[in-house]
């Protein structure tokens, strides 16, 4: 196996309309083609192509040595990824659903996150752990957790959550090329949403993006909550309120510069995330903004999050999920004096 690296994707340059699932599949294929140190493995990701088909066709195209099924053992998957990365490969592993990543928690927290530090950089772990996250797909219990809080709290991890096919493509390629481990959270319910993807476009891990300009208040979202924020902004616009939307894209490290500038420009902020709100990513965003933008804030930072309960089952998830109305209610509560 040579250490070949090419900066340009091997196939399919140009712009196409793809679902996020297809964009992720393409990103994997393009990295597998570009760098033969990349290996993809996990449960049901070979012949089946993954339960969400994100790895569809990869074994057929790249062979059993590059993309293969493992026994069902998540600590085993992540732990052996650690060893593979130590031995020069760049493993991309799939956790089937996010609650099923928990058996790997010790490996993630005590090794994946810490190896670079405990070897003074002599052993860095370029591992990508792909986790389909969040709900909205009518999944039964344990299939719709939003587990990002566990990962963003863990020093040493880089945590990414795209909200559209373009970012999914670019960020996954970037994550695979990243020198450090990346937790790559894929918003399940957006897998089938389409968008145009420029496969030659690159991404920077660590940068948020203002995805809609607005002047009255800033909505801060990531992953599944971005489309809701955008919809809410549309609805608010119809009522004459101009909402800015920031897509975090990378949760950790956090893009303070973009977020601070956005919030300071409007003086009001709502953070939207699907996970239970207590001690969550949304808490961090709210705490940071409240501290860093204190003198700019006209109103308390509101959080629209999941309730602090186990994820709701299919029949009740519409009660649970943050939606446009809930976002607009939060916006309404931002001490408007006019």
């Amino acid at each position, binding site marked *: 196996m040579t250490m070949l690296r090419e900066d340009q994707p091997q196939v399919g340059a140009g712009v196409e309309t793809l679902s996020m699932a297809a964009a992720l599949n393409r990103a994997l294929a393009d990295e597998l083609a570009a760098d033969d140190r990349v290996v993809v493995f996990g449960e049901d990701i070979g012949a089946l192509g993954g339960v969400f088909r994100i790895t569809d066709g990869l074994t057929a195209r790249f062979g059993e040595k590059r993309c293969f*099924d493992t026994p069902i053992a998540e600590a085993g998957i992540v732990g052996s990824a650690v060893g593979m990365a130590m031995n020069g490969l760049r493993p991309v592993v799939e956790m089937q659903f996010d609650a099923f990543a928990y058996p790997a928690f010790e490996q993630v927290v005590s090794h994946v996150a810490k190896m670079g530090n405990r070897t003074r950089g002599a052993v860095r772990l370029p591992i990508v752990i792909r986790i389909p996250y969040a709900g909205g797909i009518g999944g039964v219990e*344990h299939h719709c957790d939003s587990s990002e809080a566990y990962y963003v709290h863990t020093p040493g991890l880089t945590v990414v959550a795209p909200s559209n096919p373009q970012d999914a493509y670019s960020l996954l390629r970037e994550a695979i090329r990243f020198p450090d481990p990346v937790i790559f959270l894929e918003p399940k319910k957006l897998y089938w949403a389409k968008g145009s993807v420029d496969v030659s476009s690159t991404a920077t891990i660590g940068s948020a993006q203002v995805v809609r300009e607005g002047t009255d208040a800033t909505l801060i979202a990531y992953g599944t909550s971005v489309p809701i924020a955008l919809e809410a902004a549309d609805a608010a616009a119809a009522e004459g309120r101009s909402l800015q939307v920031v897509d975090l894209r990378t949760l950790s490290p956090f893009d303070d510069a973009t977020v601070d500038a956005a919030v300071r420009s409007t003086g009001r902020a709502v953070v939207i995330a699907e996970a239970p709100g207590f001690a969550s990513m949304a808490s961090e965003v709210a705490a940071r903004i409240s501290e860093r933008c204190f003198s700019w804030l006209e109103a308390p930072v509101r959080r629209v999050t999941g*309730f602090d*309960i186990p994820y709701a089952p299919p029949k009740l998830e519409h009660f649970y999920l943050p939606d446009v109305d809930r976002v607009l209610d939060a916006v309404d509560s931002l001490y408007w004096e006019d």
Partner: protein
Amino acid sequence: MPDRTLLPRNVPVQLIDAAGTEHPDEVYPTASPAVLTEGYRSLVISRRVNDQCYSLVRQGRLAVYPSSQGQEACQVAAVSVLDDGDWLFPTYRDSVAVMLRGVAPADAMTLLKGDWHCGYNPHEFRVAPQSTPLATQLLHAVGFAHAAVLKGEPTVVVALCGEGATSEGDFHEAMNFAAVFHLPVVFFVQNNRFAISVPLSRQSAAESLAHKAVGYGMPGEQVDGNDLAALLAVLGSAVDRARAGGGPSLVEAHTYRMQAHTNADDDTRYRDSAEVQEWVARDPLVRLRSYLRGKDALDDTTEAAFAAEADEVAATLRTALNADIAPDAAELFRHVYATSTPQLEEQWASLQGELERSAEGTTP
């Protein structure tokens, strides 16, 4: 199951072969025709429930259904060997076993139809909630049995899992705890050859899964998982042993998952229909029927009665699942803690506010 030979037999115990012919075994007796006829009745009902659920999921009445079609003999045996006070720790694929333990069929499908709870009171039926995180329930089974021993109660626990789940660390820890504490647990692995798309060969390189028992110092045995008679004998002996203070054991049943993993799965992506066809010939119902017919233990009247009973179970299930029961949002908050928290009270109040506003039509 013999008490202390280190290795399991290297072929599965079989008492009635696929053609319905009996092969008497020197260790494991074949149950009486009366017992097996009763077992056949359960098989018929179980098969019917599997078929009914297959339709219900296509009609959108179940969110998902992991069918045990083809594995009904395992389902029936796992429950038949239990005493009333014994406990069963099932997985998502064992809804039929849960039902056979006394839970109303529609209640057994509660999670699968999209509700937030297991559908039954575990204490009432001595059945743990069906577990989805693989192998985790084996540890609960072990702890349950441990408590029984500490309390001096004669409970035996049967813990179910698939062959894929044996790869998880929790399987190992459960087997080891059970052996070290010498607990009355029977680990019953339904080896249906696939874990979703992944074949057995990718889960284990061992001689058989029953051989895993050696590493814990407990007896293991393989059994034909489509042979109800063999299952009753092997599981029964394991349960007896456990109850007599003989400790845990591991039973591997060789069976086959006849349908896709769930309705959401497409099994043509990873297996040949020819392989599925081979297993049709080993159907657990067909062979038992032909055995009992041969013994004159089953006549047309009885068969018709069983079929009618199965129809009725299916009809009840259908009716129950076709009923549209409005979900109650309050249930989301009600059971998270024994006593609600200030935070949940606030959150529920805010949701209630939303619901009231939208009921009042303030939202268009």
